[in-house]
């Protein structure tokens, strides 16, 4: 067999694999294949591809390749960033919930249900920072309050409180009425945070309080003049 013949046979293998050759040519190539291992191996590969062609729709082949919208990547990144930050908050919340009392846990469940069931309302007002000024040396308490449809979400940060101290948190409205926001107890070290919730709407909250270690600390929410109403931490 001449090298040129072999090359000619080989170039016909595509048409052979697709069944496009007339009978005489097909028979001639079949005869060549009997004695040519290289062409047989080549044919096997081509037949694998040829077998897939019937799956394709020629009309679709001729359509241009579709491209995702230019902003889809940015939307996905934004969604993942939001999920990432939400999951971080959830992790912190779960950590603290291990130690909160039954009342707070119930409140948290109620808060979640309210989030799901109730229409979103009162969420346009911004989060409020609250700092407790009248605390013992070495103790630092501050909180961020977020308005929600169910009431107020309280992110509380406490430093310098003795490990194991029970802290009961509440909000007060203008009339001095108290709204419990649950309790928590620090088990690890003296620096911790907690996520709590109260039914009182943030717009009506005058003060945040913590009762801890037998003392009550109260900080105003919107202005110093609201201190009289008081919100407290109860350290027992």
């Amino acid at each position, binding site marked *: 067999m001449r090298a040129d013949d072999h090359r000619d046979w080989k170039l016909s293998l595509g048409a052979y694999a697709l069944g*496009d050759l007339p009978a005489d040519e097909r028979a001639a190539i079949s005869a060549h294949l009997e004695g040519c291992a290289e062409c047989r191996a080549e044919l096997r590969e081509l037949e694998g591809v040829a077998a*897939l062609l019937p799956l*394709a729709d*020629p009309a679709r082949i001729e359509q241009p*390749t579709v491209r995702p919208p230019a902003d889809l990547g940015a939307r996905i990144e934004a969604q993942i960033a939001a999920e990432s930050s939400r999951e971080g908050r959830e992790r912190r919340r779960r950590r603290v919930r291990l130690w909160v009392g039954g009342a707070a846990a119930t409140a948290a469940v109620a808060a979640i249900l309210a989030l799901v069931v109730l229409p979103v309302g009162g969420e346009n007002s911004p989060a409020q920072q609250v700092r407790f000024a009248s605390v013992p040396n070495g103790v630092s308490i501050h909180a961020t309050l977020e308005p929600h449809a169910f009431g107020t979400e309280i992110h509380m940060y406490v430093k310098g409180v003795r490990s194991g101290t029970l802290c009961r948190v509440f909000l007060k409205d203008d009339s001095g009425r108290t709204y419990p926001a649950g309790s928590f107890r620090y088990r690890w070290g003296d620096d911790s945070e907690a996520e709590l919730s109260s039914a009182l709407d943030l717009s009506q909250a005058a003060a945040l309080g913590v009762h801890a270690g037998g003392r009550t600390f109260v900080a105003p929410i919107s202005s110093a003049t609201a201190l009289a109403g008081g919100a407290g931490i109860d350290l027992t």
Partner: protein
Amino acid sequence: MTGMTRERDVREAYAAHSGELYGFAVRSLGDAGLAEEAVQETFLRAWKAGERFDPEIGSLRTWLFAILRNVVIDLGRARASRPRVAEGGVEPSVEPLEQALLAWQVEEAMRRIGEDHRRVLLETHFRARPYSEVAAELGVPEGTIKSRVYYGLKALRVALEEMGYEG
């Protein structure tokens, strides 16, 4: 990339694979809006399960397509349980999903090979026109058509392998 746990990993994966994922999603869902939703959900699931991705087992591309496949099934189920609202919308593909993926890969591979090869394969194979007729139309010898069919199939195989085909 060893996993997909960081937001930067997602960005890189999106840059490398979103085009193909979206192309397949459009083909199987028949709707650009649903396809966007599917791609978005795919990357979100991939990010959430990022630690489970193991490059020793398979490529990131294969893993993403496996996730997309599940997302497409879920979206298909959700749509089947909703009343039809889209008048004049494209009917969703009725092919089994694995076959739809393979069909899309072949179509995409056909788009990726050279214009000369694609044209000859389209005319001779898909439109069943005689080689002599296509040769006359293109002003080339019939032997050239035959060799273009041969090189076209070989190029198609390479393009399919680039897309993860291992047959």
